[in-house]
């Protein structure tokens, strides 16, 4: 009879240790037959490959920017450092959440590979755009305020200024340190223009989902203040005041029409 006096916890602990470190000796106890213990690498290789593939799906522009080989080298180090916490790899490497409390892919680079960040300081902006784009794509787009609804509200005598307006759930306002959106867009969706200049220039971009596609717009300073305020659940009035503090010529009526047309607004529940 085989020795099965071990507990299931012991077995899982030994296997977990192997998956994290590649150290397979403690698993020898649980094996029978003459098959080489090195065949265990099938499991660890499969896990690493799937996790790196998850990161490639989540950071495709970075893959194009660095090339597959270098990206995979950095990604493998990240997987070892911060294995996925959630049984879906959609979002692996993004900012910490309750489901995925790990340091993000970029935070890992900052702390563990500072030389990489020093060489490519705008990589943080690329990561911010990758995360925001995918999150906007996978978010609910229900509850969009339509022109018809607004007309109906006006007809019922509602004061639009009093309505609890918010940006839709899929909207993501991204603050960037570099003027990187054009390059990111080329990396993500098309041909990269050689010799593209990347300027240090703080700017703000908004992504949102419309008709199952992600839209992007670079925001003027006052618009950015307005959008960030709305995203932080400030009222429409408060957001307008903050934007006017930034730019006294800020025209909320024009912006409201643009937001409505872009399907970026919803009524707060």
């Amino acid at each position, binding site marked *: 009879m*085989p*020795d*099965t006096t*071990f*507990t*299931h*916890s012991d*077995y*899982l*602990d030994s*296997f*977990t240790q192997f*998956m*994290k470190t590649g150290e397979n000796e403690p698993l020898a*106890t*649980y*094996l*029978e*037959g003459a*098959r080489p*213990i090195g*065949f*265990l690498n*099938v*499991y660890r290789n*499969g*896990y690493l490959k*799937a*996790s790196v593939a*998850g990161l490639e799906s989540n950071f495709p522009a970075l893959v194009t920017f660095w090339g597959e080989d270098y990206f995979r080298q950095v990604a493998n180090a990240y997987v070892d450092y911060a*294995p*996925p*916490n*959630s*049984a*879906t*790899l*959609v979002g692996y490497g993004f900012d910490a959440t309750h*489901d995925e409390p790990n340091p993000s892919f970029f935070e890992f680079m900052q702390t563990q590979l500072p030389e990489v960040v020093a060489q490519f300081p705008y990589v943080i902006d690329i990561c911010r755009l990758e995360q925001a784009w995918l999150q906007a*794509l*996978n*978010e*609910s*787009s*229900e509850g969009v305020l339509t022109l018809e609804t607004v007309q109906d509200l006006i007809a019922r005598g509602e004061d639009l200024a009093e309505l609890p307006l918010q940006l839709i*759930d*899929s909207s993501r306002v991204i603050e960037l340190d570099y003027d990187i959106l054009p390059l990111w867009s080329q990396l993500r969706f098309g041909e990269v223009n050689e010799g593209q200049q990347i300027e240090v220039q703080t700017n703000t971009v908004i992504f949102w*989902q419309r008709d*199952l596609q992600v839209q992007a717009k670079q925001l003027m300073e006052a618009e950015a203040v307005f959008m960030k305020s709305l995203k932080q659940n400030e009222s429409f009035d408060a957001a307008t005041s903050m934007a006017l503090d930034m730019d006294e010529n800020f025209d909320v009526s024009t912006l409201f029409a643009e937001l409505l047309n872009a399907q970026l607004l919803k009524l707060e529940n």
Partner: protein
Amino acid sequence: MKSQKVQFDSKQSTLSGAGVNLKPQHYEEALSLADSSAQTKATPGLWFEVHTENYFVRGGPRLHYLQAIANNFPLSFHGVGGSLGSFTEKPADMTTRHLSQVAGLVKRFNPVMVSEHATWSTSQHAYFADLMPLPRTEQALTCLCEGIDRYQEAIGRSILIENPTNYLDFVSEMDEADFLMEAVRRTGAGLLLDVNNLYLSYRNTALDPKHYLEALDPAKVGEIHIAGFDVDPNFPNDLLIDSHAAPVDEAVWELLATALTKLGPKPVLLERDDNVPSFDELMQERNRAYDLLTASNNTEHESQLAVAHA
């Protein structure tokens, strides 16, 4: 006193025919077959399966297309991250979140079938994105059954559990087929027989597929999977990898035919997760499975007639 669990019975299943695991790049082509007249003529018995965890999102095109598929074809959910075999060792909050998301999807899309693996993948807050084996011990069986029970309670219905691919022999107190049939008996679940996994376990660890198939109760087998594999370049004679990255091997087609003869007609799914070819190419393989299934259906029908007239 424990209440008697409802036992899975494949005769009660409404899933039949042959399906394909659906990839986002094929949504449009799959839906182009949704015209009822075209589908009946060109692709009878077509259904689709998706990896449940790929739909853990709040909206967007994935859920939109999945709804369109569900409106037009039978749909099956195949979980890859449930980690049923480490259920008692997983952090409770991870389990709760995972099951809550699966339950939400099942409620929304009402798939014809829901399945998972008799393996583990999560331990100590880490998700190892692969399907790790269980030692076939009483303790592991108890843990697996608890995982199946909790999964089934969360979604309010029975599931199928899939046999693993074996690359090495782990310490065991029972044969794999007996281990799985006991898990099925204790939990009321059914079995998803992956014929490619069975073939690879035969080639890798000398598991006897004939004996294995004979040990299965056909009434408990609710679905069959087929897929392609890769030969490990370092150990070409000793190690075949369950890659889902190649067409189905001829030996696996043969084993599928044997399985259908022994178990009777079962819904068959073609899996392809890597090196994904064109939709047309996948459909050609799927159609071959459908033809095999139809042939086994006819054979079974003829033998039933023979018994009736005896």
